């Protein structure tokens, strides 16, 4: 991924200011006791005592608890929880369908980039590793994960380089992503999920590889209202396929039903993979959107 200039239309000074505020707010929410601190499942060199186990060949003798040995004549090794930094990956869909948005408002892709930047800043503030992986039909090699708040501009540059194009193939993209064997961590899937093959396979693969998926379903609810009725030719933004229909209020009602069913399918797929799912309208300002993510829980603990 090339690192060029930062898009000022998305990441201007006002944006950065609001991101800073969001980070403070998020930190307060994280320490309010409502959320548990993230603990590593791995045991290793830390200061938090985890327990004892019997000594085995190859263990560091310095970890032996001699006091216990003196009392019980058993060689026991002390174990501590290893403290790890969390890897957060933003898999941002940049297919052609993401370039659509309501009139006068950012497109889905722009909103996705803004949200990813804001969440990334918060993660960087938390000393986590952050990487952005744009995808359409496949995913490119993930950028080298950055760590620390001072790396935020590298993140912004990476996000600014993302442009809309291509078709959506989530499962193939996730398969590409895991091929590079990134460190397991949190994967935030930001997309409209307009993939005929669905989301389930991708989420199952991520869960299988030890990632913790999170689904951020961006949608443009203005599409559920027809500007005008009558004969139209609907053109698929990704495939170019045309479908001639006569728009009527009744047909739009059916379309709304179909969209709700589609959203429910995404939520169901996420639930089956034990992933959190959040559907957000693109018309919602990004800072509010970020707070929604935090309120839903699970982004950073």
């Amino acid at each position, binding site marked *: 991924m090339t690192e060029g200039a930062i898009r000022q239309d998305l990441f201007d000074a006002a944006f950065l200011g609001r991101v800073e505020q969001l980070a403070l707010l998020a930190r307060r929410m994280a320490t309010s006791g409502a959320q548990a601190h993230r603990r590593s499942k791995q045991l290793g060199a830390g200061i938090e005592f985890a327990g004892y186990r019997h000594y085995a060949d190859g263990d560091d003798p310095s970890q032996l608890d001699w006091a216990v040995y003196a009392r019980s004549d058993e060689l026991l090794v002390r174990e501590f929880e290893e403290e790890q930094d969390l890897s957060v990956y933003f898999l941002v869909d940049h297919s052609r369908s993401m370039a659509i948005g309501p009139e006068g408002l950012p497109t889905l892709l722009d909103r996705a980039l803004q949200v990813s930047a804001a969440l990334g800043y918060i993660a960087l503030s938390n000393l986590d590793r952050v990487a952005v992986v744009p995808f359409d039909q496949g995913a490119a090699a993930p950028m080298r994960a950055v760590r620390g708040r001072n790396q935020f501009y590298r993140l912004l540059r990476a996000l600014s380089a993302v442009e809309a194009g291509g078709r959506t193939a989530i499962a193939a993209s996730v398969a590409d992503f895991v091929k590079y064997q990134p460190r397991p961590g949190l994967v935030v899937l930001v997309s409209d999920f307009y993939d005929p093959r669905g989301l389930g396979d991708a989420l199952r693969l991520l869960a299988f590889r030890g990632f913790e998926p999170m689904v951020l379903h961006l949608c443009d609810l203005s599409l559920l209202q027809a500007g005008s009725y009558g004969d139209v030719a609907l053109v698929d933004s990704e495939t170019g396929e045309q479908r001639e*229909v006569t728009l009527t209020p009744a047909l739009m009602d059916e379309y709304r039903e179909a969209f709700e069913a589609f959203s429910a399918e995404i939520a169901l797929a996420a639930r089956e993979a034990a992933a959190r799912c959040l559907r957000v309208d693109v018309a919602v300002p990004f800072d509010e959107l970020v707070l929604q993510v935090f309120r839903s829980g699970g982004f950073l603990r």
Partner: protein
Amino acid sequence: MIPAIDSLQRLVGLAVAVAVALLLAYLLRPRRRQVEVPFSGLWQRVLQRRDARSLGRRWQRWLSLLLMVAIAGLLWGALAQPLLRPQDTAGPVARWSTVLVVDRSASMATRDGQCGDGALCARFDEAREAVVRWLDATAEDEDVLLMAASGHAEVLGGWGSDKTALQRAVQTVEVTDGGLDWAGALDTATQMLRGRRGARIVLVSDGGLPLAAAPTATVDVQRIWVGPLRSPPRAVAAAAPLAAASSTVALDDLAVVDARLRAQADDPDRGVLTVRVRNDAQRTIAARLVVCSAADAQLPAEFAADRALRRLVEVTIPAGESLHRIDGLDLIEGRFAVRVEGREASTDGGAAWRDVAPWNDWGFAVLASQRRLKVLRVGSPNRFIEGALAALGRVDVVNVAAEDYQPQHWQAVARGRHGIDLAVLDQVDAPPPTGLPALVLALQPPADATASARLLSGPEILVRAGDHPAMRNVSFQDTNFDQVRVLAVGPLDETLAAATLGGGRSAAVMVARHGTVRRLDWGIDLLQTDLVGRYALPILLANAVAFLAGEEDGVSTPLELGRPWAVEAAVRGGKWQYLEPGQRPRPARQSAGQLLAASEIHGLHVWRDDMGREEARPSVMPASERAASVQRDGMPHAPRPRPPVRNGPAMAWPHFAVWLLAGLLALAGEWWLYLRRRTV
């Protein structure tokens, strides 16, 4: 038809104009507004769901169902077609079926005809030319049958469209010296046309024929006049002689009270219809009887749908009730309906027939052989009697064991509404129900009888009254009887068969009359004779049933010539031998085959079927006992030739391949619909 050149050009010009207009309309059609959507898959789902609910989709489902039914039907037709192909393979269905009747009565020899060159010739020569011209003018697909009629009608050429052969045939006809039986000719022609579509009769005659006799109800009759009536005035065409003067009585004054049908004594294929007509008017009415027949119809509505006009008979009906007899009806179909129609004057002075009171103008008669009878059978189970009754095909049997039989009870039942027609008592020590016709088989006389029983052992039986309805077509020749009871014959009784032994003769089978009630006594036991294995038994029993049921003329056996007659029989090993062609007789039951035993004399074979049941069959039937081989007068019976096979409902079975092809096409259509269902 090929259109003229100018009209063809006009047609092409019109087609080009229409094509250009369609092209312009296509090019100028309003374009749809294009709307970019992120994902058309959602719209596809919406449209798919809507499409599934749409009328067209539902119609497709119905069409699919119809196609599946059609597939099943066509494939069934394809597979069953070789089985269903009728014996008579009718040709292609003709648009018209015409019987051309040429009058060759003596009057046709009169030389006042006018032939083609204007020369004077015989009327029949003119008729020949008229026939040739008519045949030339007929369409290729018209089916024509040519008849020449005088005293009787003769078919000159059968159904077929070979007009040349018919034209040749008419040249061979000569004039006779008899008169013309117009009604008979029309009757024959009408029969020939039965079941054909577009039926009509064309009569070539010198005129003077009664219009009233025309079978107007079913067949269109057209006439070609020759001789002086070449251009007949309307009055001539409409004139119709009638036996009585016309009257204008109310038509519902006439009603058919009763109609009875029976076979003619001298010809069982011909029948006599006796019609009782009531005339409520106080005067004599000129009328006609319209006689129709049908294969299955029972009711006026059914006759209206399926009937064939058989006879039109002009009658004069006096006031009150009168009987009218119609002879010589062909009994191919045994169900007849007769209607009486009064005559009233038509406006043009001719005759017109009208039926305004159809509810009482119809009378129905069913041939006795098609009537169902209810028989009370008393005695131990006897498969020979049961089998013979079942073979009649028109008998419902009520079985009562001998020990349960109480004559008084059945006497009461018989008088009630249970409809017992007759009783059969087999070796029962009790009299038949009073007042009920009965067939009594008994070696021992009833306890209350005064006559003493005398049994003859090993007698011969002679048929003494072979002309009696109960003995028709029956022979006891070479039949073995172990024992026969001598019957006491009263003054009014009649001996039908006698047992002879040692020179004396004693009644063994007889008719007894008790008042008006008939009774038949058989002094035999069917378990002690080989009669049971012979064809004579079902005939004898059929005759007895018919006679006792009051069918005076008897009913010929329903068994067809050569149809196997089989009843289960108890086999007594010691009496039978196993006979096998080319082998020496062996004791019965030593064979592994199905044929178990055979009588020494009559070729009565006992067979075992797959279920292990044993049957006695007359596999070699003596020629003297074939049902139709002997007539009452002892002369060999010459079966009346059956009329030509009717062409039925003009349906020719298409070839197997056509059925199959149609079925496959339907299958392809269904597959296409299935794919559409899956992919839309």
